[in-house]
């Protein structure tokens, strides 16, 4: 009895191990290789075989959306005869190997739709200009189209918005045809707040309730005038020179005033500036607003402004520097007026430079700089953070609370008395907090399941706005087959955008076709070619370009194959 059992057992054990090892490792199937030998005569050679595509997806843990969407895309591509390998990578690995080193075949990331990107410089220039196609640059796909480069340069340097808009339209058209890295979908941002306690909440483009305009407009309806704001993670650091994450920046820009702010439609408007004007292509003159004060009572002067720009560049603040690349020098004209001289004409300097650099109080930073030196000042905690913004820093207990109170002497003082920012560390905590009334506003894009959870809470208002950021699939044009425009177009056509939206987003997203979001009305070009959801069209494109399939449906390059890099080559 025992022996028989033993025999069965050992058999099972060995069987299992072999079976599972085979199942777990993706070993090549020998049978298929033999088949390929047979069809060799028909010139389906190894050489003409389309190389396998390595699609990097994130782990489900990091982002279920990218994970699921990635699997669906891979499935769809497989139907076209491509061999697709999905590899899940940690975000840190993917960002350094893909975003930075550009060693990928294809991977997906989600580009944030921050207010500063409403001017589509980021989308149209940074992501696609050939100068950015180097390691660490934004042009991840390696898109190097001279025709496009020319348009992009004009777009960047021309100060006339109408001209820029025309260029932008043309660029969007080209990109939609060339598809170096197709945008996939925009999320529908859904955020909730307590409408019984607060009103006038503003969901702004790209940022939802995180928007600066929300915090200066939201108005209390009850006696408790401090708004409690629940988020998923705590702030990291409050030193504006070294900050990297969006969450920090959202809070910092309430404390520090820039000269210009970007309004809800993406237009730069004077803020700490009384007015500004472009003297010529390279000079911008700003007049400082009267009567502004820092939170410690000292007046904001032109010297502070000049100091900020000079100092940030002197200590090499990574965050500020990236905004001020084109700045040559800052000149004080008089007590109210200051001039920014650029190295070359650069239109987005106002919206992406002046609008993002908060004015630092010279008297504080100069003193600290002396004590700490260039390196020390970058690792300074900067507590309490003193700026001139509509909110002033009250206290910060890491992982517990962060409190801002309104700065009543500000020219655009907020309606609430303060903001209590509460980090919950996990989304269900925020959702439960919202439900129980523990918080008034959730800094969270609600997922369908969460919306369902909250729908019975009648005191909540749900606001919705399409995200101007999007999920983007980055091909690598440095590698075959992505160097071929027809392959890229076919692959893009094969992406089941609508299905992804339905299944992965539960319907709470819209397809993206143009590089500039539809919600960004001023810049968005409606009339671009809309690639996606059409696997038949994809097959057609490949067929027309001469691609061939063997008996098993595997795809091969055309006979006498010549790479066509751009749509204009066709």
């Amino acid at each position, binding site marked *: 009895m025992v022996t028989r059992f033993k025999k069965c057992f050992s058999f099972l054990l060995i069987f299992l191990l072999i079976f599972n090892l085979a199942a777990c490792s993706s070993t090549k199937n020998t049978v298929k290789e033999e088949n390929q030998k047979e069809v060799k005569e028909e010139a389906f050679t190894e050489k003409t075989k389309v190389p396998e595509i390595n699609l990097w997806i994130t782990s489900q843990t990091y982002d279920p959306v990218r994970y699921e969407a990635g699997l669906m895309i891979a499935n769809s591509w497989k139907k076209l005869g491509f061999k697709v390998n999905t590899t899940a990578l940690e975000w840190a690995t993917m960002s*350094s190997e893909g975003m*930075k080193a550009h060693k990928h075949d294809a991977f997906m*990331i989600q580009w944030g739709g*921050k207010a500063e990107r409403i001017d589509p410089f980021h989308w149209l220039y940074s992501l696609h200009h050939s100068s950015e196609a180097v390691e660490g640059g934004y042009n991840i796909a390696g898109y190097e189209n001279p025709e496009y480069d020319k348009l992009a340069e004009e777009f960047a340097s021309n100060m006339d918005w109408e001209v820029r808009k025309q260029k932008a339209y043309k660029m969007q058209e080209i990109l939609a045809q060339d598809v170096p890295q197709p945008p996939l979908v925009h999320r529908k941002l859904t955020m909730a707040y307590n409408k019984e306690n607060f009103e006038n909440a503003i969901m702004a483009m790209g940022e939802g309730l995180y928007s600066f305009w929300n915090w200066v407009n939201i108005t209390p309806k009850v006696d408790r005038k401090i708004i409690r704001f629940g988020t998923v993670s705590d702030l*990291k650091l409050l030193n504006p020179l070294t900050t990297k*994450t969006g969450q920090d920046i959202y809070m910092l820009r309430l404390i520090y005033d820039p000269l210009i702010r970007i309004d809800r439609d993406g237009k730069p408007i004077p803020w700490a500036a009384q007015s500004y004007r472009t003297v010529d292509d390279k000079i911008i003159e700003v007049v400082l607003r009267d009567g502004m004060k820092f939170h410690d009572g000292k007046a904001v002067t032109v010297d502070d402004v000049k100091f900020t720009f000079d100092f940030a560049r002197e200590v090499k603040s990574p965050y500020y520097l*990236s905004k001020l690349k084109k700045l040559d020098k800052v000149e004080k004209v008089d007590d109210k007026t200051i001039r920014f001289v650029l190295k070359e004409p650069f239109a987005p300097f106002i919206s992406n430079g002046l609008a993002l650099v908060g004015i630092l109080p010279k008297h504080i930073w100069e003193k600290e700089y002396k004590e700490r030196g260039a390196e020390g000042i970058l690792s300074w905690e900067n507590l309490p953070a003193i700026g001139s913004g509509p909110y002033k820093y009250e206290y910060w207990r890491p992982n517990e609370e962060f409190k801002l109170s309104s700065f009543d002497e500000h020219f655009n003082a907020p309606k609430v008395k303060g903001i209590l920012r*509460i980090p919950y560390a996990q989304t269900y905590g925020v959702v439960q907090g919202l439900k129980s009334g*523990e918080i008034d506003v959730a800094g969270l894009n609600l997922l369908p399941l969460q919306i369902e959870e909250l729908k019975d809470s009648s005191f909540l208002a749900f606001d919705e706005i399409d995200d101007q950021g999007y999920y983007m699939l980055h091909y690598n044009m440095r590698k075959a087959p992505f160097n071929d425009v027809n392959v890229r177009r076919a692959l893009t056509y094969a992406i089941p955008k609508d299905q992804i939206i339905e299944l992965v987003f539960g319907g709470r997203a819209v397809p993206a076709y143009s590089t500039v979001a539809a919600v960004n009305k001023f810049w968005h070009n409606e009339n671009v070619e809309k690639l996606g959801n059409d696997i038949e069209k994809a097959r057609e494109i490949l067929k027309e370009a001469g691609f061939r399939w063997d008996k098993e449906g595997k795809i091969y390059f055309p006979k006498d194959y010549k790479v066509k890099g751009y749509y204009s080559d066709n």
Partner: protein
Amino acid sequence: MRSMKYILKRILQMILTLFILVTILFFLFRVVPGDPVSMYIDSGLDKESQELLLKQYGLDKPLLEQYIIYIKSMLRGDFGNSFQYGKPAITVIGERFWNTLVLMITSLAISLCIGVFGGALLAWKRGTKIDTVGTILVLAVRCAPVFWTGMLFLSIFAFKLKLLPLGGMNTPGTNFVSLYDKFFSADFLKHLILPALTASLYSAATPLLVMRSSMLEVVKEDFIELVRAKGVKEKKILYKHAMRNALLPVITVFAVQAGFAIGGSVLIETVFRWPGMGREIVLAVSARDYPLAQTAFFLIGTMTALFNLIADVLYAYLDPRVVIN
């Protein structure tokens, strides 16, 4: 005097272990794919700023030089600045450290109590239903993944019954004057119950089983019979003699368990959103925040080593037969 020498020797050994640990970690982290900078490309770090940041982090220097700098500054008590938080890693971890410690100590204390008294009870009731059911129950808890037990508790006590909070360390918006205030407020204790219970149930099982078998061994000893012959009350025999003697092997096991529990706090802290060191390690590793992860790791390693040391000393104290040398 001899015992002092022993402890000193143990501490030296501990330092050596930690040093090697730190070295391994240093190089491990540097061969991890990914760097702490490229993750912020999306949020607006262009290529010049990336290089600048790498330089500021000291990551542009050769590996060996980085290592020497790291060890040198560590000897000065400087663990470097956290990449994410911009401030000294030890400050960042310090805040989390106490949270972890409070949770750990509480749950370890509870688990020791459960282990010792539960084990004694099961041994005392050997062969009865209590023993059988108890042993099975304990084994089941020991074998269940601790994060799953935590999820179960959360769904039952927090979500369904709404008795306890859903996680975190205190109700958002509460103000505490001092650390003492924070750790002894009713609100904190309410938040502590579930994570501490989950952790302690899990780490109680091994000491409990050891205690049980150790007790079974001890009650067969001659001296127990003599004590009984002396007419000492049964309860007193149990507590004063049987348990006291059976405790000795439990101490050793418990130290190992404690080390394990500190490592396992990663799971508990993740499930219960406890702002502790374990969770910070996971986040730091994901964000490639080397200084922070290394510091947290160093602290956890130190705690593990300390627990072992304490256990050894405690053992020597509890068992007069052990002559330290």
